[in-house]
């Protein structure tokens, strides 16, 4: 098992580097100048050249990339072109803010999605199955930024009960988290929870129904096992693929949602990426992307390991 984990950990490195190469290339393929946003209207050619040189943007792309990778490997993510703040000091609070939102949303969606999926999968009543399926389809289909706006209209504008935008007063000082912060969290977390809830409800329902039809379940019934014991057997067999889906959903939420975070002015990674893209802030964009890519890869690694622990049959060779 330890060797397996080590091997999988080593596999993550080329994946992360591959992601950075793709992102770096796409960013440079897009039209526009990375330093445009900080240049005065009448910037002379000398000033443009000077600022480009200061950020190393006057060098060939492969050299720029390798230098950046070298600095990142030594813990230096560079400085934001727009704000002149270290990229680390920009990205880490954003990651923390997104993590707060993602963990809340994923807790909600796991609770709703798994409960509903199990209820539908185990129920022999058609109405339960149909209802859960309908919820799942709506959850998957509704654009979450639209849902966010609808929730804002109802709970913030009409009822004036919950804040429409922003984080609470504690900000990234989570140890000061209070009731006001919780109120700010409700609408964006509900919005973000909708899609994973739908995905999970549908997946859990399908997996449970499939496992229920397998012969070993009939055998267990024939042996006279009680329903709770049979339930546990079914859940254990259905768990590995569901865990994989949960991991992907969690990793996606950790990556932040540009649309939802923009709708709620939530200062997370999605909000940061949006600003970085709009201003062509290359160091910030690259720093955010590598942090998010690392999170994504590590979350999937954790899920793989968990899957293997639950069911050794899925161990990769």
């Amino acid at each position: 098992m330890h060797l397996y984990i080590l091997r999988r950990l080593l596999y993550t490195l080329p994946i992360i580097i591959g992601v950075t190469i793709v992102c770096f290339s796409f960013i440079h393929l897009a039209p526009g100048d990375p330093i445009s946003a900080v240049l005065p209207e009448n910037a002379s050619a000398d000033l443009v050249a000077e600022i480009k040189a200061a950020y190393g943007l006057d060098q060939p792309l492969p050299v720029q990339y390798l230098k950046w990778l070298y600095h990142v490997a030594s813990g230096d993510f560079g400085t934001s072109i727009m704000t002149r703040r270290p990229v680390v000091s920009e990205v880490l609070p954003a990651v923390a803010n997104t993590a707060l939102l993602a963990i809340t949303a994923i807790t909600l969606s796991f609770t709703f999605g798994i409960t509903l999926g199990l209820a539908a999968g185990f129920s022999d009543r058609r109405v339960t199955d149909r209802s859960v399926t309908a919820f799942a389809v709506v959850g998957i289909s509704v654009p979450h930024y639209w849902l966010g706006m609808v929730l804002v209209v109802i709970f913030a504008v009409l009822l004036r009960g919950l804040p429409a935008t922003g984080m609470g007063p504690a900000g990234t000082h989570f140890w000061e988290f209070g009731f006001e912060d919780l109120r700010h969290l409700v609408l964006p977390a509900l919005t973000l929870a909708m899609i994973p809830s739908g995905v999970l409800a549908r997946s859990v329902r399908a997996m449970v129904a499939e496992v229920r039809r397998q012969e070993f379940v009939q055998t267990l019934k024939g042996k006279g096992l009680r329903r709770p014991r049979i339930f546990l057997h079914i859940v254990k067999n259905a768990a590995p693929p569901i865990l994989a889906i949960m991991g992907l959903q969690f990793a996606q939420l950790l990556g932040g949602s540009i649309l939802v975070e923009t709708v709620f002015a939530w200062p997370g990674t999605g909000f940061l990426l949006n600003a970085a893209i709009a201003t062509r802030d290359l160091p910030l964009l690259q720093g955010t992307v590598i942090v998010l890519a690392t999170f994504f890869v590590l979350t999937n690694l954790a899920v793989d390991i968990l899957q293997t622990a639950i069911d050794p049959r899925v161990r990769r060779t």
Partner: protein
Amino acid sequence: MTPLFLSRRSALGGLTAAGLLPRVAAAQSASVLRVGMTLADIPLTTGQPSQGGEGQRFIGVTLYDALINWDLSRADQAAKLQPGLALSWEVDAATKTIWTFKLRPGVTFHDGSKFTADAVVWNLDKLLNRSSPQFDQAQATQSGPWIGTIASYRVMDELTVQVVNKAPDAVFPYQAVNLYMSSPARWKEMGGDWNKVAQQPSGTGPWVMEKVVPRERAELRRNTAYWDPKRVPKSEKLLLRCMPDSTTRLAALLSGQVDWIEAPPPDAVPQIKSAGMQLITNVYPHIWPYQLSFLPSSPFHDVRVRKAANLAIDRDGLVKLLGGLAMPAKGMVTPGHPWFGKPSFDIKYDPDAAKALLKDAGFSTAKPVKVKFLISTSGSGQMQPLPMNEFIQENLKEVGIDVTFDTMDWEALRARRRGGVELPDNKGADGINNSWGFPDPDLGLIGTGWSQKRPPAGYNWGGFADPIADDFASKAKLAFDPAEQDALLAQLHTRMVDQAMWIWVVHDLNPRALGPKVKGFVSAQSWLQDLTSVSVG
């Protein structure tokens, strides 16, 4: 927003009674003014703000003063210059290059240190002297358009400073208005680290920074010791929140989370009004134009085509599309502005006249003029660029001008404008849709209409070259009497309009929506605004 089947009263009754939804408004203190900005980040706070006009509006003139300030107290006339940290300024009659500023006595920075002539020189070194320890490239970059004319400066006595220009420049007072004075003492206190100063900036302005949370909010409090008693803020605190999405800002206003939003979406105007909010508009130095190419290969080289394009646009229809938040343009500046002059070319919607001009130039709907415009998807001052451009494309097609667009994001467009029409990337472009401002003579008229002012020396993107315009521009640059300068600028503007230098479309009306309890705001005809007179409740 669509009405819901659940009435607000019944829903509120149920949910608040259950203690689930405490009212937002209850938590609000009446002396806090909460603003939803369009910005995604708090602008640079160290002195020279980043992020253009909005940066100066909310961080520049709140925390800082310049030697010369804008008078933002009137809504019925274009903002004028007034003494700021300098009581007076005058140019040396012989050389016309040496400016003497007499400073205001008794002014202190927020940290308690004294504002003196040494502080002025220290601040100019911060922007211009690369060998000075306080030199800051970030602030120098932001002040780029306004410091290029300065050759040297020196302290005369504790309250007198001399600034020497490289050449006579009567526009210099308009440039000095953008040079904000930050505290040398605070910089020293922070160990000479501008990043630390950014968290605790210190100026002489009417507001004091209390807390900066990047990309989220800035919290400012009233400067009770402000040197101008008339401008000590009415509100105790000012909360600036980053809300780049217009729908988000609207929801924040309608839900009572903020009292003031910048640039509400035009299609929300009826809703804002029906919700009892105040929609404030006024003209200000903004124009939404197409800056044109004067290269021989461009059809706009011919004044008849330029005039035809100006006459082909249904500006009233466009204003309707924009929810009334714009005004049809008659030129670069608004009619009634001291620089408007008396153009003989009346810019209006007259498609028949446009067709006649095009026919005279050898074009028709059967043999249309073919042009390409560079446009952006969004951007500062760009209003609603995509629907506006599509609307105008239809208008122009009807008279015989076929327009194609090269669409890009805002920063890409800015780079294309900064490079001038001869930039290799701009090959084939006949115009660029880059919104413009005319807060000062250089930016608005001299820098755009003078043939010497091709980028990067100025803003004459397309290479407009007219000897008469050049004559007025060069004279205005040397007219040190404000009235004489205004008269020359009016003549310059008259010539620019008569030559149809650009296609001028509409002026934005600077819309902002305020909550019903906001009082005392005067919407100045400026990119900047004074928040000191505003109170809530």
